[in-house]
């Protein structure tokens, strides 16, 4: 430990050295514990050394956010919104047309079914025009909500329901399915109407109706 072999012999006082060597000094164990614990603690909590990537990570993050804002911002603000609005407008338009067409179609289908039940299942009768106002009135919420309606259940079932987004709902009942096909025809969506009719026939091959397959 000592390097006292240099030529400065007059600086190597043995008596003084003996005095220091004779000092009874020992480090308290409590100090040892504190210092060694601190030395180990910093090793356990020391974060990993900074790489060049870590060093500049805040700048990378800021740059990435700016780039994303420049690229995605216009897409979010323009394209998706306009498409969405256009599709909503078209859908509302279609619903309005469907509602109007349903009334007239339902009236004719009701008369066909009544004729089929009362005579020989041959659709001959036509509904009288004075029935139409009554059916129109059924579309109002107050009348629709009334379960004790004086009208026959077959008529109530023909009351047009507003179309909702769940298109599969109308396929649960043959009547509603046919109404939807009629609506498609009225809306000049013949290919879709044909497809729906084919699917209808596949599911209800024996269902009697005077409805004919729509042609182009």
């Amino acid at each position, binding site marked *: *430990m*000592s*390097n*006292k072999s*240099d030529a*400065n012999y*007059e*600086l190597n*006082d*043995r*008596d*003084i*050295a*003996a*005095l*220091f060597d*004779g*000092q*009874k*000094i*020992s*480090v*308290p164990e409590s*100090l*040892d514990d*504190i*210092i*060694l614990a*601190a*030395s*180990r603690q*910093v*090793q356990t909590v*020391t974060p990993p050394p900074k790489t060049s990537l870590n060093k500049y990570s805040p700048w990378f993050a800021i740059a990435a956010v700016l780039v994303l804002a420049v690229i995605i911002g216009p897409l979010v603000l323009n394209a998706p919104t306009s498409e969405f609005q256009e599709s909503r407008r078209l859908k509302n338009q279609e619903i309005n047309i469907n509602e109007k067409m349903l009334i007239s179609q339902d009236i004719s289908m009701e008369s066909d079914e009544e004729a089929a039940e009362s005579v020989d299942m041959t659709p001959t009768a036509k509904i009288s025009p004075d029935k139409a106002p009554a059916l129109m009135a059924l579309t109002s919420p107050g009348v629709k909500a009334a379960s004790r309606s004086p009208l026959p259940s077959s008529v109530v079932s023909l009351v047009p329901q507003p179309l909702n987004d769940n298109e599969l709902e109308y396929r649960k009942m043959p009547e509603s399915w046919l109404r939807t096909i009629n609506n498609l025809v009225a809306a000049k969506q013949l290919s879709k109407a044909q497809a729906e009719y084919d699917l209808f026939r596949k599911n209800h091959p024996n269902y009697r109706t005077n409805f004919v397959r729509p042609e182009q």
Partner: protein
Amino acid sequence: MGDYPSMDDAQLMQAYAGGNADAFEVLYGRHKRALLQYMINSCGSESIASEMFQDVWLRVVNGRDTYQPQSPFNAWLFRIARHRLIDHYRTQGRAPKMENIDDENQKNIFQLALSPLTPEQLASINQRENELYNALQQLPDVQREAILLRHIAGMSIAEIAMVVETGTETIKSRLRYAISKLRTLLEVLT
């Protein structure tokens, strides 16, 4: 502990900076007594010395990445200790000072230094350690510093010069004065 006991101080410090806490334990075991002895003899109070001793080692721990293996660990450690002592002196309202000794006084001191202490005198001094502390406290700070680094830390003149950041001739001069004055004081005390 692995091969740590066979490593030199610089290797141990590098190992500790690299994440091996066991290396620090070996290093600490090598230098703890000398450092505490240096602190006690410097400030003359065991409690203050213990507090500063702890501070110094914590500075070593926290500054492990700043250690340059080209310089001896011993010099680095005692330089930290010296700065801690200077902080202590400042809080006490005094700064380390170099005492100017004229040639006549120097000659007298060297005359005294040439006569060794008797074994009886040494034994007496060993029994009264406080007197050594008292004698050391009467030395100028820079001379006490030089003699403590020489005899407790076991440093060469060049290493002391490195720690104190001054020339080797200055260190030699300080040591000569310190030894002579200490001998004088101890003879008086005995």
